[in-house]
């Protein structure tokens, strides 16, 4: 069997000059970016006081901590932890629901197909962006100043920070809807409210329900951390046990959080499927 005639490389070079003779700038771009990235990385390591010695002692400490964590053991505080977990789930559920309820009308104002005027839409969008730019933990600190320590501050913190996220997501969902149904309502004599209620809502509600369920799940995670600054829930217990170095309790609490998140994940997956499946056939 004979192989293919080996192509003349000079010939190929002449035929595809773009491939063989790329301009220097495009050939150097990738190595330059990589070099720059590595340079900043090394600068960062130095600037942030990384040293092999610190790393080694730290890892040794971490190894000790992991050893001390086994086996996970709640001691005598299991009932308190269960109550705290319930608090966390409540914070996530309530915070997300309140955020969704307030975000829905505002998202209408931020959607291009409802408010065509840029002058009104722009400030609403920037407002939502600024809310999202501030982390949930910071909102929790602010609300603690207002309503005092406890889970209620956590609910309000999650509600406010999710309000920003929902406003953006909902308005995007509304902008992605089909115009024909709205036009149908208008053609049969409906006013603007009718258009929104019967033309838009049936299209966006399944999307919105899916997003809300997803956020309940991700907020179970956020709700665990806002306890660290004193806004109630299981994070408060976790931060306390870490500070007093009760490692067995810490590992038990982490396990509890993992299981709760997995359970919520499962339930919201089922619910999401039920809602979207039913709407799709109805």
């Amino acid at each position: 069997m004979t192989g293919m005639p080996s192509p003349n490389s000079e010939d190929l070079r002449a035929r595809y000059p773009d491939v063989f003779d790329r301009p220097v700038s495009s050939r150097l771009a990738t190595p330059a970016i990589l070099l720059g990235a590595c340079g900043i990385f090394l600068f960062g390591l130095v600037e942030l006081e990384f040293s092999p010695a610190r790393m080694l002692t730290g890892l040794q400490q971490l190894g000790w901590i992991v050893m001390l964590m086994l086996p996970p053991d709640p001691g005598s505080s299991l009932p308190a932890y269960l109550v705290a977990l319930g608090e966390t789930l409540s914070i996530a559920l309530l915070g997300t629901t309140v955020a969704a309820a307030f975000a829905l009308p505002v998202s209408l104002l931020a959607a291009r197909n409802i408010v065509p005027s840029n002058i009104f839409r722009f400030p609403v969008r920037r407002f939502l962006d600024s809310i999202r730019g501030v982390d949930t933990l910071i909102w929790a600190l602010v609300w603690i100043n207002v309503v005092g320590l406890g889970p209620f501050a956590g609910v309000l913190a999650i509600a406010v920070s999710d309000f920003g996220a929902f406003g953006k997501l909902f308005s995007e969902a509304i902008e992605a809807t089909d115009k024909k149904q709205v036009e149908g309502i208008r053609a049969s004599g409906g006013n603007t409210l009718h258009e929104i209620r019967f033309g838009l809502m049936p299209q966006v509600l399944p999307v919105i329900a899916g997003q809300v369920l997803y956020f309940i799940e991700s907020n179970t995670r956020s709700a665990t951390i806002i306890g660290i600054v004193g806004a109630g829930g299981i994070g408060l217990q976790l931060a306390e046990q870490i500070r007093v170095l009760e490692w067995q309790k810490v590992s038990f609490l982490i396990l509890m959080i993992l299981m709760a998140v997995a359970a919520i994940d499962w339930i919201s997956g089922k619910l999401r499927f039920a809602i979207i499946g039913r709407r799709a056939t109805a």
Partner: protein
Amino acid sequence: MTAAVSILPEQQLAALNGFYRKAVARKRLHLMLATTIAFAALFVAGIGAEVHPATFFAKIGNFVSYFDRIGTLESGARVWSDIGEWFWGWRKWLSLLGETILISYVGTLAGAILAFALNFLVAENTSPAPWLRFAVKRLMEFCRTVPDIVFALIFVIAFGLGPMAGVLAIMIHSVGVLGKLFSEIVENIDMKPVEGARSTGASWMSCLQFAVVPQVAAGFASYTLLRFEINVRGASVMGFVGAGGIGQELVVAIRKFYYSDVSAILLMIILTVFVIDIATGWARGRLFGKERHA
């Protein structure tokens, strides 16, 4: 124009109407049930979270006036009347903000490198062994379910106070998230180049290097940039637990009621997040734009 609607005979109509009403009634019943359950759940949650509407309404004024207070200087003037006084600590804050970005950068890049090394073990089409896939997948799940600030709390004790704990916490969290996203990209590649490489006798490594990586590099870079932006937000609160960055200053200002400092630092954080949001968005656009033209 006359409407040509054919009216069905009375009997047929009655039967159809009956079916329609029944169907609607069943739907309404389901909706009512779902609403009741949802409200019951919310009510229970309200008790669990110690919601006191009375407190809320009594103190909501505080929330509004909080923004009034953070907009006021010590002297009682509005903050924008004396920018120099408002941003009195801008040198310190800027350097801390730089540290925050650096924490996010180093943490994200280290996490992305580790995720790059691990994701090929997890993706279904490139994984060398099922047990390895299972083990690494569970590890990644653990890394992304435990919030980064919890890792930071633990690392602060192991590695000491300072930005190192924050970097490591962000790195671990990024490994979990990026590992999953990366492996999903790998699972969606075109397998023909891989088969081509394998048919020439290439090893697993060479297959990855010449057939997989060229297909996924742009997607990986794009997700890493997105993660970098999210991690800047995360790094801004790392200081709350002593893991470096601007969070330390912010938490002190909030707790000690240095109102104008709170607004100054918050404004700087929000602006930084905006700038990084726009910059990474632009870079991601470039990345995919280039990919399409090539």
